[in-house]
């Protein structure tokens, strides 16, 4: 059975054959001032990398991608391409868009398999940079800074580097080898990655601030907050982030086989939790959301994907109480029907409970996916201004309230600031690296 579970978590999308890739690459018009480049947050020179696939310059193709995006192999798999590059492809109005994501994967797979060296570290310039967090933003910043010649140290609390890509994106979309390869690419440039090192525990923020010339905070977000209802301590109640993380670490247990699972929340993490539960063998998986289909924050293709996986959706439904048996195991979930009322301060209609509409569904597990907590103590340890745990930055320079500290990735996402995409985090990492380099370079070059 466990080999069946492993198969369930294997990458879903097959890779292009050489024939397919060449045909598709030759279909690209090689537009001038191409909209796909503009649509890519990291501005990958898309027509160039595609032309290089067509001409057989595979190393050049992989370099074009990875130069613009240090996690280009992951993004080839996880980017919402239909709203980015492929959505912008001019062929949308005549035939069908170029499969840019698939071609990007074809080129980066080549690089992964051949093990070819793509980049070299720069001449050491004597400056030391600390990066807290090794997710998309942190890795991206580290890669750029290392190429500029900085001595870079990454502090990572987890056992493995890669952050979201290593622990948070479901394996059937992004296999571990891909995230591992991208981490290895950065490590090969001489970046020191201190894993199992939690800032605030193993080293203080103060020490980092004094020991390094500049600091980049790229810690992302934390665990899922409590629902604030009865029964959250019961066995069978999971945090979606932790739930997905376990599958990423290869822990594919059989305890959900044939079981009924309720997922609370309707963002992309909820979809991840639900689809992982389906792949772990759950018989019935339902997503409960207190608003409606219209308000859900998951991408459209994620929603479609969940539906294809057989995930059910219960709209206007909120959990009220998790019910356990004598052994402390989840057996049910009491829910209440909701309706949308007046618009709140954020402009969204507020869900309101309908009186006496309570009902109980039988479930064996509850997965909480109602957002993520913020690393407020850590942010405050660095003395940074923040708004509800979202670090305040100048969005053009990624600089925080401390001019020595920059922040990027999910730690700056929220309250209308930033974007939640992996590819945006990669670009923010590059931006932070560029600004740091600009600052350190200027005085010496002017003089």
């Amino acid at each position, binding site marked *: 059975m466990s080999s069946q579970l492993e198969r369930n978590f294997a990458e879903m999308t097959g890779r292009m*054959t050489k*024939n397919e890739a060449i045909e598709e690459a030759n279909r690209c018009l*090689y537009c001038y001032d191409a909209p796909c480049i503009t649509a890519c947050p990291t501005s990958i020179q898309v027509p160039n990398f595609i032309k*290089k696939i067509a*001409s*057989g*310059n595979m*190393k050049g193709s992989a*370099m074009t991608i990875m130069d613009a995006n240090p996690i280009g192999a992951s993004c080839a798999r996880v980017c919402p391409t239909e709203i980015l590059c492929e959505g912008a492809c001019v062929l949308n109005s005549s035939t069908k868009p170029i499969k840019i994501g698939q071609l990007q994967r074809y080129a980066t797979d080549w690089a992964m398999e051949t093990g070819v060296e793509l980049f070299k570290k720069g001449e050491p310039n004597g400056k030391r940079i600390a990066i807290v967090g090794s997710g998309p933003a942190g890795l991206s910043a580290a890669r750029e800074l290392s190429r500029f010649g900085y001595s870079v140290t990454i502090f990572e609390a987890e056992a493995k580097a890669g952050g979201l890509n290593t622990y948070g994106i479901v394996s059937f979309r992004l296999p571990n080898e891909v995230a591992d390869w991208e981490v290895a690419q950065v490590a090969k440039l001489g970046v020191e990655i201190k894993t199992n090192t939690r800032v605030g525990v193993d080293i203080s923020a103060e020490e980092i601030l004094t020991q390094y010339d500049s600091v980049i905070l790229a810690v992302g977000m934390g665990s899922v907050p409590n629902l604030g209802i009865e029964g959250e301590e019961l066995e069978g109640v999971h945090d979606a982030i932790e739930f997905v993380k376990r599958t990423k670490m290869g822990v594919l247990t059989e305890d959900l086989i044939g079981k009924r699972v309720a997922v609370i929340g309707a963002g992309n993490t909820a979809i991840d939790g639900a689809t992982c539960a389906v792949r772990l063998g759950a018989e019935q998986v339902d997503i409960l959301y207190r608003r409606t289909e219209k308000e859900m924050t998951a991408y459209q293709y994620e929603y479609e994907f969940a539906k294809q996986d057989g995930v059910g959706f219960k709209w206007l439904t909120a959990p009220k109480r998790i019910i356990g048996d004598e052994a402390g195991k989840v057996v049910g979930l009491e829910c209440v029907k909701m309706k949308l009322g007046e618009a709140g301060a954020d402009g969204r209609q507020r869900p309101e409970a309908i009186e006496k509409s309570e009902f109980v569904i039988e479930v064996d597990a509850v997965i909480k996916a109602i957002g993520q907590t913020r690393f407020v103590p850590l942010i405050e340890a660095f003395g940074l201004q923040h708004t509800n745990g979202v670090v305040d930055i100048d969005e053009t320079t990624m600089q925080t309230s401390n001019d020595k500290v920059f922040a990027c990735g999910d730690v700056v996402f929220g309250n209308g600031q930033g974007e939640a995409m992996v590819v945006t985090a990669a670009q923010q990492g590059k931006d932070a690296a560029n600004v740091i380099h600009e600052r350190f370079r200027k005085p010496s070059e002017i003089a």
Partner: protein
Amino acid sequence: MADLRIDLAGIKSPNPFWLASAPPTNSGYQVQRAFEAGWGGAVWKTLGEPILNVSSRFAAVSFNGQRVAGFNNIELITDRPLEVNLNEILETKKRFPNHAIIASLMVEPQQEKWHEIVKKVEAVGVDGLELNFGCPHGMAERGMGSASGQVPELVEKQTYWVKEVARTPVIVKLTPNITDITMTAEAAVRGGADAVSMINTINSLAGVDLDTWNTVPHVGGKGAHGGYCGPAVKPIALNMVAECARNPLVNVPISGIGGISNWRDAAEFLLMGATGVQVCTAAMHHGFSIVEDMIDGLNNYLDGKGIASVMDLVGQSVPRYSNWGDLDLNYNIVAQINNDVCINCNKCHIACEDTSHQCIDLYTESGRPMLKVREQDCVGCNLCAIVCPVDGAISMVERKSTIPPMTWNERQSLISNFIR
């Protein structure tokens, strides 16, 4: 990072990619944009007595939906005053001193006309001259271009006149509209050419409009033959380059032209004896930026092969190009079909059955359609592998011959010895 610099008969450029004398090199603005994009050199659009052009000049041939498989034009040499071009060459050379600027020239076949123009263009600092003996349309009707390029004596004489005064290397650009290009190449060398370039365009008519019955293109209902270029002409050009490269009487560097669209094409021309290449159609189809992959791809190819300099590639395949009579009659290859990869389109079978040697059998094995080559009947023609749409489904494999190698020429000489 391999060294991509070339030295073609003393003309140096940072890489082997030059723009050919054509619409892309019409002005200083264009050539400077090209150099900014990375082109190593440019052969300025042919200078001469400015001409009048017609409107409706280009046409292209699509092949099964692929645009610009071939390209046809009836545009003539520069239609701008010589002084304007000379000023722009001067200015461009000043901005890009390390890039090669070659002036393409075409005047009437008179000694003093050649002397005059050579002196004028050399005065503005060009790195070399290219004599346009190849343009097949319009100018030929006035006794220039291919009209003089088709007559070896005229090629030799005009080259000689140019060499009388030229201080920079002289490249003679040859027309393919001739039975044996080595005849005119040899004539150019006899005239003192420092290099030859080939091919100019091939006489062509792109098509006929089936609704109007007009030619494509037509100028107010009338057409005239144009010059054909683009990917479709590459094999013709490659052969002509190779024939010149292996001809001991054409002992000068060759600048390869004809359908070069990417670094692979360029590498093939270099292997076949060209010291550098000239490109036009690919740039006209996609813009100057295509040179980025040409440079990057060639560099990665050389690095991958451990070759330090692109000049080390030049001519490596020339000794492998020979006459039919020198090919081993006993060399034997046969087709092999991998049924695990085969998608059963049966194109190989029907190609062989209808048009080649009837040696691919269709059969079924446990209900599954299969294909097999009867090796004893296979002549190794390659047709099946050519029509096969799937990589790796058909491979041509060598079957060691039991008899020693023997060429046609060896066989004939043995027979004649025997008769004697």
